[in-house]
């Protein structure tokens, strides 16, 4: 083999880094893209944070203050899932918009390496978007998300993973339907919001909606957040459900992706997927 090419893990890591470098180089040069990452989390935080402040100023009592904190905590944590999902889907769309997929898929990059790169970019995009909002929540509303303790890492992890499998589903639909499915990259997870019990407990939902809510890891994560914020408890059962559901949904999304990727190779869609 010419040029001393290596095999195995090092080469795989390099290919993953190559795909991440492609996106980092893009962000380094494009301030609108960087601004977009922080714009929505901060906007959401401001709207709901000032709403919570207003309600707290009009009504006295610990319950109202706690409700305000839950609202801000919900906004920040839900942004973790939203940004993680968009991070994967939009990074994939960048390849379609630049008509670069043909070159990417004829390189030795394996599909799982592409996904790993998209997940890596999603993590960077999410942190770039959400960390400033968390800092702003502390400055504007004296709300410290990390005050609930190390459990916040588990809440973050479950929501990130949920964002990832939803995104994998969106990417699968883009592989199947091309640009026609593009709008889902921005909108799909918003549709999960009512069922995710972000701002209220699952018990508030009508009975018919509860099974749907309980099938989503996010509803268990937010129950866990409320347990931590209101009672200082770690709701292991809820976190266990969230992790288990995430594992099941991830397997389902991976199977869907594998099926749609193969379908795209059968239809020849990898060369003209943007059309």
């Amino acid at each position, binding site marked *: *083999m010419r040029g001393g090419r290596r095999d195995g893990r090092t080469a795989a890591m390099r290919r993953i880094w190559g795909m991440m470098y492609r996106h980092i180089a893009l962000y380094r040069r*494009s301030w609108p893209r960087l601004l977009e990452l922080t714009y929505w989390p901060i906007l959401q935080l401001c709207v709901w944070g000032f709403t919570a402040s207003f309600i707290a100023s009009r009504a006295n009592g610990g319950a109202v203050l706690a409700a305000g904190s839950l609202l801000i905590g919900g906004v920040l944590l839900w942004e973790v899932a939203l940004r993680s999902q968009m991070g994967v889907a939009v990074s994939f769309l960048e390849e379609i918009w630049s008509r670069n997929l043909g070159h990417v898929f004829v390189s030795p990059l*394996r599909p799982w390496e592409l996904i790993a790169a998209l997940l890596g970019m999603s993590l960077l995009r999410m942190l770039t978007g959400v960390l400033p909002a968390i800092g702003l929540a502390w400055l504007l509303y004296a709300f410290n998300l990390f005050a609930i303790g190390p459990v916040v890492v588990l809440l973050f992890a479950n929501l990130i993973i949920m964002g990832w499998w939803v995104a994998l589903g969106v990417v699968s639909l883009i592989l199947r339907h091309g640009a026609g499915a593009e709008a889902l990259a921005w909108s799909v997870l918003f549709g999960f919001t009512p069922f995710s019990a972000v701002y209220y407990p699952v018990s508030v939902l009508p009975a018919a909606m509860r099974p749907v809510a309980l099938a989503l890891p996010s509803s268990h994560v937010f129950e866990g957040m409320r347990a931590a914020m209101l009672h200082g408890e770690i709701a292991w059962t809820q976190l266990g459900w969230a992790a288990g559901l995430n594992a099941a949904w991830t397997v389902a999304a991976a199977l869907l992706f594998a099926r749609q990727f193969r379908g795209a190779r059968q239809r020849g869609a990898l060369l003209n997927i943007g059309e």
Partner: protein
Amino acid sequence: MSIIAVRDLSKQYRETLAVDRISFAVGAGQTVGLLGGNGAGKTTTIAMLLGLLIPTAGTIHVLGHDMATDRFAALARMNFSSPYVALPHRLTVAENLRVYAHLYDVPAPERRIAELAGELDLAALLDRQAGTLSAGQKTRVALAKSLINRPDVLLLDEPTASLDPDTGDLVRGWIERYRAESGCAILLASHNMAEVERLCGHVLVMKQGRVVDEGSPASLLDRYGRADLEEVFLDIARDRRRAEAAA
């Protein structure tokens, strides 16, 4: 031994048979041309060779690897250039080449990029965004990308489409030089008959998904009694010989 070995390859899309049981081989240091009109099956054939498209039937072996089961081993030693597949416009030329140097696990990528910049006269373009380049400059960059891993197999889909004669000639010169220096096997799909005549030692003429004739450019000219490949192409595309015989 053949570097590319294609046997009874077919691709069916619903009602359309895009490629119909074609077989051919490309040896080391050989350039084979795929000639044919629009929709003849050239791009479909190249897409199957690259693993972008799963064949309906038949086998493809590249560098001894079965593309159905072991394509990544071959892809590391292959590359591809087409004016219809772009590079990210917002990235600079150097960044684009760096991305592909990583994807192909190229050792000492900066040195390789500098080499290619020298060979393809890209040094002044390295810091420019790919989207700001002219068609000729983009083609040179695409060629640099396709040579980044010093491929043993190069698939070129209309590499000089939309280029002025000067740039087209330079690109053909680089392709010839690379093949001579590296012993690379090249499959070239083109509508430019002069290009095929200059670069290819063997030509496959495709029509409606089938290889309807093949041979060296000289043997095709002899067989059809024509002065250039364009006339041969028209004979085949329009069934002119049959029409002339009937007349």
